[in-house]
């Protein structure tokens, strides 16, 4: 009996022992799983880069190994995620000092906020000291929107964009319509109605309706700006239910409901690109970076048939937004030099030329350097949209985008941490209104309440 029990106990111990040894050895073995490519091979000297899944970044991932790594011997591992997942991951990693990434792509909205929190390394000094980098070549609005509270520059621009209005030249010609060089929103509404009337196979205009401060509220805030509205006044008074704000939102919602694409409340940039690229809309107001994929015959049915004019206005002279995807180095990185070297290379003139020669000039990550627009090959590839893009970026004024002075720097967003939540919540309700549920009035009333609570923190 006792012997039997002893044996039983021993067997339990041995099972447990085996399991825990296995677990322990597993834990010690580390996470390397071999293989190459974007999941990398896990050696500690490598630079870990987290990027948003835009085509420009995919090109960067593709070109790095044969060029940057071949030249410098620095291995680079990439993680690519969609915008919203990327923001969640970066915020969590940087905010909790996780230190998993050495370089991250961040947008113009986050840089000043994170810089103020001390999460990002200053990059401007080293970049302006680097002769070959030609820091002065970077476009001013880009550098302005990447500045921290102390005047330092906390990220290097990878590509920049503004917004403009795209329209189908062939459709306009068929229907005998003309597009002004600098249209106003009422003119656009009339044109949308006319196309809608004449063509049963396409929507008059395509506009974003997908909830999210960076989705619906990117174009919508520029409309609010030019209608004379703002989220906050310079003295932090919330203005979400002010008549100008309401007029702009009602105009936008009505336009997209009357003459917009089907499923507008679910349309973000990607969906709109598909809608317009498949020939299902006659106009589209969105990012200048849409022109690249639209002019690519392999992905677009409307290549060569697209005209580009300035962002529609009402009270302001220009109304394009300003967005930049930039490379930042978190303070928690273990290898700041290598990370910085990579950031310099990826945002350099040399890299733009490399993309042009290897992948084609229309794929150059443009919109950040004056010199890009002087390259003859690029000018040829971007004949239809290059100059207007540059002009739109130069005209966008992140300091004074509307009719009244603003409390923060930024065109289509307010550079405070709470804006992500505010913009998302209000956009959810406006998106519902676009889907035919709920009213703009209620949405803005609720938005005003939220905005007032936030404003109190800043007065």
């Amino acid at each position, binding site marked *: 009996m006792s012997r039997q029990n002893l044996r039983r*106990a021993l067997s*339990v111990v041995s099972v447990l022992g085996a399991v825990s040894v296995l677990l322990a050895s597993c834990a010690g073995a580390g996470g390397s799983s071999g293989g190459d490519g974007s999941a990398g091979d896990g050696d500690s000297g490598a630079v870990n880069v987290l990027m948003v899944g835009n085509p420009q970044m995919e090109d960067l991932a593709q070109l790095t190994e044969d060029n940057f790594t071949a030249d410098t011997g620095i291995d680079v591992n990439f993680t690519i995620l969609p915008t919203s997942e990327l923001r969640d991951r970066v915020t969590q990693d940087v905010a909790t000092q996780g230190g998993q990434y050495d370089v991250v792509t961040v947008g113009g909205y986050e840089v000043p906020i994170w810089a103020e929190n001390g999460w990002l390394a200053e990059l401007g000094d080293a970049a302006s000291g680097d002769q070959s980098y030609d820091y002065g070549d970077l476009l001013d609005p880009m550098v302005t929107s990447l500045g921290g509270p102390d005047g330092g520059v906390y990220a290097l621009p990878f590509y920049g964009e503004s917004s403009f209005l795209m329209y189908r030249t062939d459709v306009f010609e068929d229907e005998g319509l003309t597009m002004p060089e600098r249209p106003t929103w009422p003119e656009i509404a009339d044109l949308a109605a006319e196309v809608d009337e004449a063509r049963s196979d396409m929507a008059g205009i395509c506009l974003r309706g997908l909830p999210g401060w960076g989705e619906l509220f990117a174009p919508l805030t520029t409309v609010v700006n030019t209608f004379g509205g703002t989220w906050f006044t310079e003295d932090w008074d919330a203005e979400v239910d002010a008549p100008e704000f309401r007029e702009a939102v009602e105009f936008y919602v009505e336009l997209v409901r009357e003459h917009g694409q089907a499923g507008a409340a679910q349309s973000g940039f990607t969906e709109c690109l598909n809608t317009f690229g498949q020939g299902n809309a006659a106009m589209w107001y969105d990012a200048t970076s849409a022109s690249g994929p639209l002019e690519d015959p392999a992905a677009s049915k409307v290549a060569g048939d697209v005209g580009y004019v300035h962002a529609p206005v009402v009270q302001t002279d220009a109304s394009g937004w300003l967005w930049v995807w930039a490379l930042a180095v978190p303070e928690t990185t273990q290898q700041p030099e290598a990370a910085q070297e990579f950031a310099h290379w990826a945002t350099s003139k040399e890299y733009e030329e490399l993309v042009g020669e290897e992948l084609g000039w229309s794929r150059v990550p443009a919109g950040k350097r004056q010199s890009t627009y002087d390259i003859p090959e690029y000018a040829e590839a971007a004949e239809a949209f290059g100059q207007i893009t540059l002009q739109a970026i130069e005209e966008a004024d992140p300091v004074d985008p509307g009719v009244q002075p603003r409390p923060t720097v930024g065109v289509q967003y307010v550079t405070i941490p709470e804006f992500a939540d505010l913009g998302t919540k209000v956009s959810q309700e406006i998106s519902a209104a676009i889907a035919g549920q*709920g009213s703009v009035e209620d949405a803005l009333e609720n938005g005003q309440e939220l905005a007032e609570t936030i404003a109190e923190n800043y007065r």
Partner: protein
Amino acid sequence: MVTMAESAAEVDARSRMTKGGRRQRWLRRAPLLPALVLVIVVTQLPFLTTLVISSFQWNVLSPGQRSFSGLTNYVTVFTDERLRSAAVNTVTLTASVVILSLLLGLLLAVLLDRKFVGRGLARTLLIAPFLVMPMAAALLWKHAIYNPEYGLINGTLNAVWQLFGADRGPVISWVDSFPMPALVASLVWQWTPFMMLILLAGLQSQSNDVLEAARVDGASGVATFRFLTLPHLRRYLELAALLGAIYVVQAFDHVFTITQGGPGAATTNLPYEIYLTMFREYEYGEAAAAGVVAVVGTIIVSIFALRVVSSLFHEEVTR
């Protein structure tokens, strides 16, 4: 874990000298302990941490301002209308998905329990939706099926309309017009095969003799199903409903991908609302409090469901 085992052995050794009962008890417990310890460490420690975090005012975007705030977060949570509507949405979503997929699963199981041409192939094809990665399924439904411009549903409608000479089929924006049903449909599609498998197993475990006897006695097919098959299936139905509910309550991938909780907050369920609090507001304390409330709520509901309604948990005769 080694310490755990050692202590079990120690107790074993000591108890050999004292009472046999205690040793016996530990012997019985010993095989359970490793698994239990792992589950406790991995699930309960985070839960305790969540409790601690929930008592802090902690917004990640304002570092250095973390402070103890007692029950403030709970007050916020209980007075938050969004959270209440998220709770209601969770119940609606879970109940509709579980009930619909149970019914469809039952129908399919009954169909598959009969012989017909290609039954094996049909069963294989029917299992597929359960095996497709949920994130892939959610993306597939959103873009390839519901999309109003080029989705499969509107595309098929368009093709049928054109077949009958119409110029263009109706353009229906499924996710905008019917957000909750669209979400439910995609989840039902994923979970029906799971329900079907369990119920099919139940049908096939039914004894042929009883059914044969009923047929000889002249009972109709419907009566046989109602009075013999359904009672026999009860445990299987309950198991399927329980397992389904456990996973559907957590549904996140579909909400996150297909509707983003919208329009407005019409399809925001608790997991998605907690996610928003955490990753849009960065209010970690508030998110933790919401999580704690959700856990307590779910456990109360499940105690009720399991102890009162279900027969799955009735204690058997202990051996």
